[in-house]
Every structure is written in structure tokens, then in C-alpha cells.
């Protein structure tokens, strides 16, 4: 049901604000330890503009295109969310919403098991 509401409100500010607020809450929680060794231009507990990686415009690709089934068999779709090294890209970089990220990571792990995706690539 959350997927439905998010899908209908993709262009409104609400959908953009809620993942934003969730991200901020996340970072504030971890904010205590981060400033001591965080990178200068990074999501390290600093709010308001210094976040280079957080793209406000990024919405969940699956919610927008209404792709419900994330199959381990469509390697091309999965490869968009896998780095060069074979690692699964975190959701703050791709903008995927949480339930879809969970399903996506399960699908990627299944694909890895059946040798459709590598466990570790170049790096």
C-alpha cells in the first residue's frame, strides 16, 4: 500500500520530502560519530546543502515505472544497480525505496548464485 501512495504522489513535494526526512533522521542518528572522521563534502551529519551524494530529484525507479516484479533473470535491469566491482549500490545513491531495495538485493544475490552476475569484479 505504501508503494501505491508513493506511486500516485511521485511528482508532489510530499514524496520527495519523506525520503529526505528519513535520510536526515538517519544521518542525525549516526551524526554523533560521523563529524570526527567524515569526508569534507559528504553526508556526514551536515544538513542543508553540503550533501553531495543526496540527489533530491532521485525517485525510486521501480515506483515510477510501476515495475512490480524484480526477477533475478533480467540481468540488464539488475546491472544498473550493481557497481563495476560487482557490489550492490546503496540506495542513497540510486534513490530506490526501501521495499524495492530489499527485493532488488535478493534478486541480485540470486543472480550471483546462478552465475548471471559476478560476486566480485575488477576491483
Amino acid at each position: 500500500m505504501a508503494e501505491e501512495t508513493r506511486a500516485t504522489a511521485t511528482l508532489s513535494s510530499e514524496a520527495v520530502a519523506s525520503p529526505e526526512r528519513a535520510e536526515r533522521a538517519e544521518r542525525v542518528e549516526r551524526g554523533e560519530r560521523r563529524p570526527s572522521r567524515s569526508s569534507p563534502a559528504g553526508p556526514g551529519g551536515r544538513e542543508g546543502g553540503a550533501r553531495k551524494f543526496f540527489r533530491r530529484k532521485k525517485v525510486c525507479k521501480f515506483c515510477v515505472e510501476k515495475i512490480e516484479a524484480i526477477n533475478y533473470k533480467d540481468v540488464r535491469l539488475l546491472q544498473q544497480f550493481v557497481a563495476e566491482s560487482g557490489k550492490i549500490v546503496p540506495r542513497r545513491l540510486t534513490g530506490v525505496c526501501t521495499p524495492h531495495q530489499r527485493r532488488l538485493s535478493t534478486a541480485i544475490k540470486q543472480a550471483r548464485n546462478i552465475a548471471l552476475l559476478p560476486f566480485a569484479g575488477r576491483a
Partner: protein
Amino acid sequence: MNRTYELMFIVRPDMPEEDQDKLISTLESAVTSFGGRVKSVERMGKRRLAYTVRKFQDGIYVLLTAEGSGGLMHELERRLRVSEPVIKFLTVRIDEEQKRLDKIKAIRAARRKTSSPPPAAETPGEAPAATA
């Protein structure tokens, strides 16, 4: 007895065509002897593997969808494990996922019916008929 499974397995690339057919027909007969039903067998052809499996760089992928109990899958997996040409396999249960997808499709169809206002027809009369 209504669990749907998807079994994907990789056969070594130097296996001849008739041996593949023999293997697949053995599996199919095993499914039916256990009281299951084969829904489809799809040969996905030769593909490059993402990593080396048993010193092979390529493999022939086969996808078998079957309906049956868990014991059936257990037996199939056991056979695949001992069979020499099969180098990897993966079983996924898909009936729960299918149920979820059908539910979402039904919800979407119902929403589309009720959201678009028809010119002069009864909407409540149409919507249950569409979802049923």
C-alpha cells in the same frame, strides 16, 4: 500440492543436444511421478558465466517451472546434484510472488475502472465484474 517452483540449472557447454533432451525428459518424468506438473521448460541457450564454475566459462541455461510439493523439489535437486553434466542450479518458489503480483494487478484494474468516470453507466456494477 499447489506450490509453484522455478528451477534454473546450468549444464556444461560441451554436452550434446540429445543428452540435454534426455536429462530434461528424465526430470520431467520425475516431476510427474511425484505427482507434480511441469508448467514449462525453457532453454535459455549458451551464455557466458559471470565466474568460472568447475573450470567452465560458458554454460547452457535451462529453466524448468513446475508445480508440486516441497518433497518433489527436494528430489529434483538431489538428482541434479548427483548428475555430472549439471554444474549449478537454483530453485525459487514463485507462488507467493505470483499471488502478490495478481493482487496488485487486480487492485490496479479496479482503481482504473473506478477512477475513470464512465459517461452514463453504473461504475459499481462494472468494477466487481472486471475484478471477478
